[in-house]
């Protein structure tokens, strides 16, 4: 094929290339397409595949034209990539297509180029590691949270206090002043479940009591039509439950799992916190190091990759379509950074031969299996079924890349 093309625009990772394919080549492509089609269609009077090309061309002109165009565009696309030595990052787009019978076909090819990442500088960065110290308060806080989770709601026979869980029958007067039956609500006092006026009424009641009173709706009530109105309400308190926190003793520790004493539980909690802190500072060091790398090695990022990432996150966070633009605007720098980060890791893994090998994956699986007390083969099968193996592989590769980077940079 004798394809002519010229680059119209070359902006970062984007290329706009005007491609022209001579009429003769288009005609040849049409015959090619007709021949291909002739093998499939049946025309009365001919065995399948035996109809003359000319007849097929006349009968299925439109679909052949489309097919021929497809062929031409594909060939041209391949030729352009070949001649220009381009590596594309995403599906190309075609703009401004001109396709008339007996005329050369011409179109604009919109490409995104896979960035050629050359990491000029990967060493000599200085990163400070900030290790968070786990204090006794944090451990206590964590234990308190555990107590909170294990709290019992015990019924009490007195007026409710803030923080109590109450069951009430609540009814609001209709416009004509009659008060309907009411519905049952479970409310934690002071948690903002009910409007302030109603909570006030509840605190004045004992279990079994009932009261009717005018209550003023707050000025910031979500339903605008109700704001600032005063209405009669009937509140009947059915029962009050108070939170009873378990004591921090050995019995509590046993209840939490495989711990004999409260001290054992405390140690585990501390270890967990230390582990988390270590992971956080690891991630922090990695992020800082990558920031350095990104700053020192500039390359263009294909916009479609960034957009793809943004779309993915928008879906994951269930961003409505109307909010999408704002979200994309806010999220773009993060997404771009993510793409750069992935590209750097990928490039390093490739150039320095740090990709996770099968052996690495096997080792990791064995390690996981030991932790879970399962058979490695079983763990492998489960991971494979859940499609988690590639994730695991990527994790190992990333670990290896960062280990390589840590060896060549100063971490303080």
């Amino acid at each position: 094929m004798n394809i002519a093309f010229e680059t119209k625009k070359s902006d970062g990772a984007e290329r706009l290339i005007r491609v022209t394919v001579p009429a003769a080549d288009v005609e040849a492509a049409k015959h090619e397409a007709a021949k291909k089609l002739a093998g499939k269609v049946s025309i009365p009077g001919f065995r399948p595949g035996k109809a003359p090309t000319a007849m097929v061309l006349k009968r299925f002109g439109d679909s052949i034209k489309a097919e021929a165009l497809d062929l031409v565009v594909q060939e041209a696309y391949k030729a352009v990539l070949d001649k220009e030595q381009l590596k594309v990052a995403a599906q190309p787009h075609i703009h401004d297509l001109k396709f008339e019978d007996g005329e050369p076909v011409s179109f604009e090819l919109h490409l995104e180029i896979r960035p050629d990442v050359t990491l000029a500088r990967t060493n000599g960065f200085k990163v400070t590691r900030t290790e968070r110290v786990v204090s006794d308060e944090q451990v206590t806080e964590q234990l308190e949270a555990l107590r909170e989770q294990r709290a019992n709601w015990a019924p009490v026979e007195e007026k409710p206090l803030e923080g109590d869980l109450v069951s009430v029958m609540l009814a609001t007067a209709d416009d004509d002043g009659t008060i309907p039956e009411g519905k049952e609500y479970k409310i934690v006092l002071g948690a903002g479940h009910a409007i302030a006026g109603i909570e006030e009424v509840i605190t004045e009641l004992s279990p079994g009591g009932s009261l009717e009173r005018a209550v003023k709706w707050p000025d910031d009530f979500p339903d605008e039509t109700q704001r600032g109105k005063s209405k009669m309400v009937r509140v009947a308190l059915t029962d009050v439950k108070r939170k009873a926190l378990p004591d921090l003793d050995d019995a509590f520790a046993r209840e939490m799992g495989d711990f004999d004493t409260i001290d054992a539980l405390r140690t585990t909690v501390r270890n967990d916190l230390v582990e988390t802190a270590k992971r956080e500072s690891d991630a922090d060091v990695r992020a800082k190091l990558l920031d350095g790398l990104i700053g020192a090695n500039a390359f263009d990022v294909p916009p479609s990759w960034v957009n793809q990432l943004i779309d993915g996150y928008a879906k994951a966070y269930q961003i409505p379509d109307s909010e999408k633009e704002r979200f994309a605007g806010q999220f773009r720098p993060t997404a771009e950074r993510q793409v750069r980060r992935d590209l750097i890791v990928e490039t390093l893994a490739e150039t320095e031969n740090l990709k996770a090998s099968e052996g690495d994956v096997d080792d990791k699986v064995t390690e996981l299996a030991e932790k879970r007390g399962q058979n490695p083969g079983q763990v492998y099968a489960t991971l494979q079924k859940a499609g988690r193996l590639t994730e695991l592989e990527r994790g190992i590769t990333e670990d290896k890349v960062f280990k390589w980077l840590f060896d060549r940079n100063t971490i303080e």
Partner: protein
Amino acid sequence: MATLHRTIVRPVVTEKTSASYQDRGEYVFEVASDASKPAIRQAIERLFGVKVTGVWTMNTRGKPRKNMGKTAGLRPSWKKAIVTLKEGDKIGIFEG
């Protein structure tokens, strides 16, 4: 007297006939069963604007109808005409 379009019923475009016009320049038509060779010649010349150099005709016997295993009669018999044209003349419909 049959009109032009009644004389020539339809061109027979099949694998066999396309081979015959491609190899030997013979065009095959179904014609009215009472059409004479001169009438066919005239009709082809008038219809397609070509010069006919030869006309051969034959009556094609109807084949037995394929009817779920039973043969209930025949497909109609028809008359076939094969014509050759002056060198360089062509009839478009056979080209596809």
